[in-house]
Structures are given as C-alpha cells and as structure tokens.
C-alpha cells in the first residue's frame, strides 16, 4: 500500500503509543529489579494484576536478586519482543506485512515446547521458553499492528 505523509504521521503515533504501552508493561514485569520504592511498595498488587495474564510459577520465572519476575520466562520473552519490535518500528517507515502462514509458523515453536515438556520429553527450560516467546510475541505484534495500520489508512483514504 502506498504511504502518504498522513499515513506516516498516523503510523508513527500508533507505533509510539504501542511502544509506551509495551514499556509500561515491561517495567511492571521487571519491577523487582528496579530500585523504585513506589513500585516495590505495591509489589503484591502488581503481582495480583499480572496473575490475570500468567500462571507466575516460581520455577518457570527469571529471578533478580532472589525475587521472581512478575510473569514466567515465556511471557517475559513475549513482552520483551513486543517492546523491542515496537521500538525498532519507530525508526522504520515502511509497512511491515506479516502473513497468516508466517504467524502460524512462528507459533509452532511455542506449541512444540509446551507439548514436549508437558509430556515429559524434557524438563522446562527458561532459555527455550524465552526464545520461543520472543518469536511468538514479535510475530503476533507485527500481525496485529499491520491490521490496525491498514484499517486506519483505509479510513484516511476514504475521507
């Protein structure tokens, strides 16, 4: 799709907004590592908040000075990839398209890892979990972003 100045401007603001949201979410996740008293004092509430999106199993979470992150390693990978992808996209003007087949292809490692460790082929590995999370998170983020941008560009063109 041809991108006009209006497209670029709107696209940049969407990407900036998503980057800020991803940054806030990621700061929450790694809050045990940060030396911010305000975040530390609301630790149980943050933990409760993130429990909606993750099982928060201690053995499956990264730790920072003996304190576990607020989500498991796979979710940490997903949020980290969304943060990095949204940051990189702030400097890229082109519209990155990702096909449905690519999304499914990049979801396979997550699914395979979950199935394999669930049936006991191997034990839970945080590095594998975070890596598969990164692949999945970046693919889903690009897929959703593309849908939002195309829809908004069509609206602008229609006007």
């Amino acid at each position, binding site marked *: 799709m041809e991108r006009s100045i209006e497209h670029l401007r709107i696209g940049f603001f969407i990407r900036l907004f998503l980057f800020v949201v991803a940054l806030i979410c990621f700061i929450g996740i790694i809050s045990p590592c940060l030396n911010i008293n305000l975040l*530390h*004092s609301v*630790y*149980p509430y943050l*933990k409760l908040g993130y429990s909606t*999106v993750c099982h928060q*199993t201690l053995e499956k979470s990264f730790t920072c000075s003996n304190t576990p992150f607020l989500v498991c390693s796979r979710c940490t990978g997903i949020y980290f990839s969304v943060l990095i992808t949204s940051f990189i996209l702030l400097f890229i003007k082109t519209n990155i398209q990702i096909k449905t087949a690519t999304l499914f292809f990049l979801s396979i490692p997550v699914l395979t890892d979950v199935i394999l460790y669930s049936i006991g082929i191997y034990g839970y590995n945080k590095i594998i979990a975070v890596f598969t999370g990164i692949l999945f998170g970046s693919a889903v983020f690009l897929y959703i972003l593309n*849908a*939002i941008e195309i*829809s908004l560009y069509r609206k602008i063109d229609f006007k």
Partner: protein
Amino acid sequence: MNIRKYLPAIVCGFGAAVLATVPGIKNFSCCLLIPGAAVFAIFLDKKITHSTEKVIISKGVGFGFLTGVVATIFITLFEMLVTYFAKTNDFIQSLPQSELIMRQWNLGPLIDDSLKLMKGMAKQIENSGFSVLYLVLIFFSNFLINSLFGMLGGILGVRLANRNLK
C-alpha cells in the same frame, strides 16, 4: 439493543471465564484464553450471520472488548464464590512470600502501610470469605487486562477472518 447481535461475544466471554477457573487449563493457556475467545467470537458471528463480507476492525475491537468484559464479570464472580467457600485464595497463600520479598527491600514505613492493608484484607477473607477491597482489586485488574487482551484478540480475529477475502 439487540442482544442476539452480541451473543457470540457473550457466549465466548463466558466460556473463557469458565476455562480460566480450571487450574490446569489456566496454567496451560496463560494469556491466550481471552484473545482466543475474542477470535472465536468473530468466527462464530460470521457463521451465524452467514456473512461473506470483510469484517471491519471496529467491529472486531468491539467484539473483543465485550468478550473481555463478559469474561471479567464471570471470572470475578467465580473467583469470589470460590474464595467465599474456601476462605482462602492464591493471593492469601502468596502473602507471606510477598511480605518476605518486601521486607528485604527495606522500604521503611511505606511497606508497613501497604502490608497493613493487605493483612486486613486477608483477615477479612479468612474470617468471612469476602473482602470488598479484594473484590474491587480483582475486578479492576481483570477488567483492565481482559478488555485490552480481548481487543487485541478481536483485531487478530478480524485479520484471520478476512485472510481469504479480497
């Protein structure tokens, strides 16, 4: 208001809430339940209406949001019911560990106020099985996250539903 129009989102939101209550499934599916329910709601709506037209993104976002809201209501309801009968929950069980972690940060009076509030809430739940503060906390955290993930799932559903349409 034509409630039948929103039936797929309501049904899928309720389904997600039921699944979210089952511990094994909750651990397995993580944050995929609500977006999955929103995607399913879009496809269900397409099936019911026999539509061959493209689904617009605002509809997907709306459906996803409604799925998230319905799921929030039922998840909160189920959680409060389980807490009422069990007189305990994950929050209370993890409170001693949270306290230990907070104590090692040496926050001074800041931690005392925060812990006082939490312990009061835990005591109320252990005695009567209900705490207004806990209800408000889980409702708002569920609402914020489920509606957001629902909307993302709705957008995902729109792209998946439109993938074969020109």
